[in-house]
């Protein structure tokens, strides 16, 4: 166990450096001179250019600048918005609760609905629930999340007045249910298919036959014996999916105008405010990495075979 944890931690550290390096290189090696841009098209005097380069450390070699950026990250400094002059960290701090609420709502929906429909599909193989989920899972892959979002918004919000059209004024759950469902669509289908496949495989195991042969009731065998063992891959997927829900939130918050971290990126893209995009995306990637690490470690605790791979 110890060796596995150390190996996995080392891997995360390497990936962390790689990921931040790519992000940094992408932003700072692009064509265009930020100092010249400050001059608004007018040539700046040489001493002014020199001062600005000193101030923003632009005269240092690339690798020193990258080190400075890493140190900033460790201190929670994700950059400064060019548009508003506010620090990206403070912008994110205001917006974070909305995104967490949205992601957790979607997560709850995909967990509850996905597992229940998956179990039904497995128990009644070829039945209506199975066929419906099969169709639904292909549909969820084929419709872009923003098209699904707009459709739900117009039908449920504008035409039927069932839910608020946009924004978070109505609070939880009214404002979050439809966006959460739209965000969950893709993963809901995956969780359902995964539960179905895993449960079907477990049901062929001998210990399940043994439990049935002992005369245990059907619901007990399924709930207590089969489901427990077939749920591990589903739990793993759900763990990894939290990171994907965050990046999906960029689209969903843009469609439903929820003032979360995703909308922050969404608006920053429209305003060409690269610093905010990179700052928020960096945080998302870090959350994603740590989430994957946590899932792997948890998996190693749940299933000892993993450690010896």
């Amino acid at each position, binding site marked *: 166990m110890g060796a596995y944890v150390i190996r996995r931690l080392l891997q995360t550290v*390497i*990936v962390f450096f790689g990921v931040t390096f790519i992000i940094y290189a992408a932003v700072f090696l692009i064509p265009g001179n930020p100092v010249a841009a400050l001059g608004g098209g007018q040539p700046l005097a040489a001493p002014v250019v020199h001062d600005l380069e000193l101030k923003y450390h632009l005269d240092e070699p690339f690798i020193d600048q990258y080190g400075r950026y890493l140190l900033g990250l460790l201190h929670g400094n994700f950059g400064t918005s060019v548009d508003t002059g506010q620090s990206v960290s403070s912008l994110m701090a205001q917006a974070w609760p909305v995104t967490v609420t949205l992601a957790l709502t979607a997560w709850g929906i995909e967990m509850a609905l996905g597992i229940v429909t998956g179990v039904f599909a497995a128990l009644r193989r070829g039945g209506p629930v199975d066929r419906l989920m099969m169709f639904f899972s*292909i549909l969820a*892959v084929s419709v872009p999340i923003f098209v699904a979002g*707009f459709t739900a918004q117009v039908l449920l919000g504008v035409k039927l007045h069932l839910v608020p059209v946009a924004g978070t004024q109505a609070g939880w759950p009214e404002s979050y249910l439809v966006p959460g469902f739209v965000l969950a669509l893709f993963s809901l289908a995956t969780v359902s298919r995964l539960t179905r496949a895993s449960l079907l495989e477990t049901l062929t195991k001998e210990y399940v036959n043994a439990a049935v042969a002992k005369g245990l009731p059907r619901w007990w065998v399924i709930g207590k014996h089969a489901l427990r063992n077939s749920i591990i891959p589903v739990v793993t997927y759900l763990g990894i999916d939290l990171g994907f829900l965050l990046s999906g939130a960029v689209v969903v918050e843009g469609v439903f105008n929820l003032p979360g971290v995703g909308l922050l990126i969404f608006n920053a893209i429209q305003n060409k405010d690269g610093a905010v995009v990179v700052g928020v995306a960096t945080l998302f990637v870090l959350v994603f990495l740590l989430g994957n690490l946590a899932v792997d470690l948890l998996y190693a605790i749940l299933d000892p075979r993993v450690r010896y791979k």
Partner: protein
Amino acid sequence: MIPAWSGQQATPAPGTGGAGTPSAGRASSFLGDAWSELVHNPLFLVSAGIVTLVLAIVAFPGLFAGLFGHGNPHDCNLADSALGPRAGHPFGFDVQGCDLYANVVYGARDTVSIGLLVTASSLLVAIVLGSAMGYLGGLVDTLLGRTADVFFGFPFVLGALIILIDLPERNVLTVSLVLVIFGWPTMTRLMRSTVLSERNKDYVLAARALGASNFRILRKHILPNALAPVVIYATLTTGGIMVAEATLTFLGVGLQAPAISWGLELAAAQNDLQQYPHLLVFPGLFLSITVLSFVTLGDTLRDALDPRLR
């Protein structure tokens, strides 16, 4: 077009029996089995038909655009702005007064091109790097594996977003390139694990004992047996790539006007959605049906060619 598709998919199949086992007769019967299963599968026939039609539209948009109205996506009249479907213009007009049907037909090209280009390039990268990693192992495997880990560290669309927002000009090539950069690791891992599982089989050892070079063993013996899973996976992801293009374009970091693509049409529809739903419905329908057909085609091919992957 159906023979072309099946031919492309079938390339690895002869090897599945042929290169590994001495009997060539079994190989052709395996292919024959797969083919007869496919032609009796209505899902395959319908999806292959739609994919063929879409590819025809991509190749010759002019032929299809001319079916209704003037068929010129750039022939716009502001007086027609956002008018709904009417005689001669079955899909109506967009906000600029351009015929929406002609635009949807011409929009197929960029979206589908990106899907096919990204899939083909990722597949090529995966086959080369995956075989090298799986067959050579050692330092090559470690270095490439850790590099792949780094690209795995990005949730898919988010990584592409960070790079794309910095690019001054975005077209089919640059958007495809960025999608490949973040798309190759999954396929490469799959290819590596397949090659790894073939590497120590008896037929490979026999070839080595006979003095075959590494390259020859890889090319003639391992590759034909190891291609099927990654090729099938690739057909399954093509649809997802097209959705990714549309999503990135919607966010404002994908293709840019004056290019015409389904993603651009959907992105343009968002502001006037409540008054003019037809702007979203028609490109959305075309995109979804196309993606649905590609995914279903990949699904049926997988079931026919490699039942183990089900």
